[in-house]
């Protein structure tokens, strides 16, 4: 798409390129998430044991299925970059939108930093295995962020095509591991009958495990950031998102099945790279290489998708003057939000250089959780203000309002679980967003052109 001209025929406008298809949407969502299958999910085993981790896997899977359905319906209508931020702006109001925008930017930038840290640590592990024990991971962390920022800067099509290839490889690596574990002959390689135990810490352990169950799926909601660059958003976003959550449910279940059949829960609960360890236990060198590359690709795909999404959320806030308009610029050749991409590079590098992987991830998860809580209110309000017969939707999710209420209930349980393990982090992140909200109301909102931010050609909402 080239520069378009407004209806008056005088002012030229630049818009993002509409070049993406449902496979790119799938690659964006699954790409951000899949690294959680390779590492991180297994901390749920330390809290709840193997069965507790399975309950967490499926209960949180239900939470994210609600997220995927709700997102698909709203995004098929609000087809704009910014995703949930734009939805909040149109459906709830400016303060909610500002907060949701911040949740998105913080969640994705923190996750990007964590992914880059993982790439650096993997390089250090390879160096250590080849006899060089003291490799500094920092140059590889910076290279990961710099290369992916460059890729994102140069265009969304190549960025998400690369993500599709490496995400598909990582997913197939999990399938290869499952096949390599000889699942048709239980007891041969997989020893579930010996390794599965009772719940080690009872049901409170299962509740505590829910927080880490989010690693299986965290980020699938990122698909809707592609809405402004996808051809036929009303069809592509639901296809990519629902396909993505189905892929993740399969990958998560296979990951749990293979890992718990090979490792005792006491080891699995603290392993750094459980899937690679599983391949090592099977003893197939080719499988080990595939899983190592899969882990690396999954981390890179996640960082790549996070740069894409964080930049679009920040760009959208700039476009609406929630942040300085300077950030709302589109590159005239590459059609990417180039200033937002550049602005977030030093922030991601700074988070990564702290080296505090668990704190960074916790901040990311909590920001995501706040966003999911918003979605449940958003969905109920959306259907109430614009019923099904008023606005055309590309996808209508079934059983409304059950998914919205289920999502709210599950979010509440996960808040409690997070409070059990990371109470101080939960309270400090709440304080951060409250301070940011006060700044927005007192200082920033005066710059927002209130009429300009509502661009959807929707009818007046019911009751207004």
């Amino acid at each position, binding site marked *: 798409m080239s*520069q*378009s001209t407004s209806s008056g025929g005088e*002012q*030229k*406008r*630049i*818009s*993002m390129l*509409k070049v993406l298809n449902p496979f790119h949407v799938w690659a964006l969502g699954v790409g951000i998430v899949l690294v959680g299958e390779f590492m991180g999910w297994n901390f749920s085993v330390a809290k709840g044991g193997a069965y507790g981790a399975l309950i967490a896997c499926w209960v949180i899977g239900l939470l994210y299925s609600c997220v995927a359905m709700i997102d698909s319906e709203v995004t*098929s*209508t*609000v*087809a*704009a*970059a*910014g995703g949930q931020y*734009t939805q909040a702006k149109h459906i709830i109001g400016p303060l909610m939108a500002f907060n949701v925008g911040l949740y998105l930017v913080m969640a994705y930038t923190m996750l990007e930093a964590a992914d880059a840290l993982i790439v650096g640590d993997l390089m250090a592990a390879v*160096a250590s295995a*080849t*006899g*060089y024990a003291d*490799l*500094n991971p920092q*140059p*590889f962390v*910076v*290279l990961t*962020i*710099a*290369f992916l*920022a*460059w890729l994102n*800067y140069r265009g969304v099509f190549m960025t998400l095509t690369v993500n599709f290839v490496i995400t598909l490889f990582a997913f197939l690596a999990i399938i290869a591991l499952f096949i390599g574990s000889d699942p048709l002959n239980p007891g041969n390689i997989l020893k579930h009958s010996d390794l599965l135990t009772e719940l080690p810490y009872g049901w409170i352990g299962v509740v505590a495990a829910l927080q880490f169950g989010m690693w299986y799926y965290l980020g699938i909601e990122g698909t809707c950031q592609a*809405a*402004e660059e996808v051809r*036929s*958003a*009303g069809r592509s976003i639901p296809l990519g998102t629902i396909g993505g959550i189905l892929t993740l449910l399969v990958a998560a279940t296979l990951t749990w099945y293979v890992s718990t059949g090979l490792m005792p829960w006491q080891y699995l609960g603290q392993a750094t790279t459980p899937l690679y360890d599983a391949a090592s236990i099977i003893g197939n060198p080719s499988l080990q290489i595939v899983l190592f590359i899969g882990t690396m690709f999954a981390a890179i795909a996640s960082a790549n998708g996070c740069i894409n999404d964080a930049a679009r959320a920040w760009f*959208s806030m*700039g*476009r609406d003057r929630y942040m300085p*308009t*300077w950030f*709302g*610029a*589109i*590159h*005239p050749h590459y059609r990417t939000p*180039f*200033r937002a*991409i*550049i602005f977030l*590079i030093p922030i991601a590098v700074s988070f990564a250089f702290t080296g505090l992987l668990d704190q960074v991830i916790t901040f990311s998860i909590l920001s995501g959780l706040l966003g999911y809580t918003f979605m449940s209110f958003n969905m109920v309000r959306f259907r109430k203000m614009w019923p099904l017969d008023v*606005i*055309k939707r*590309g996808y209508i999710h079934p059983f409304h309002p059950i998914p919205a209420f289920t999502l709210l209930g599950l979010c509440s349980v996960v808040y409690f679980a997070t409070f059990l393990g990371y109470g101080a982090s939960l309270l400090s992140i709440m304080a951060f967003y409250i301070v940011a909200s006060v700044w927005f109301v007192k200082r920033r909102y005066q710059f927002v052109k209130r009429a300009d931010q509502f*661009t*959807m*050609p929707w*009818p007046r909402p019911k009751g207004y």
Partner: protein
Amino acid sequence: MIYWDLLSYAAWIISALLLLWIVVDAVSVSRQFDEELLVSSREGADEMLDQIKREGEDK
């Protein structure tokens, strides 16, 4: 091992070059193009919205 030292230096250098390229290009674009054009995009430019608009006009 010298191989890993070289790889580390290469990573720093490539990172610096990539970041430099990005910054130079961004500055160059900001100088070449009018700021109003760069920030002129509007959200939700989608064929589905056009369809909704048309349906609204028909009613």
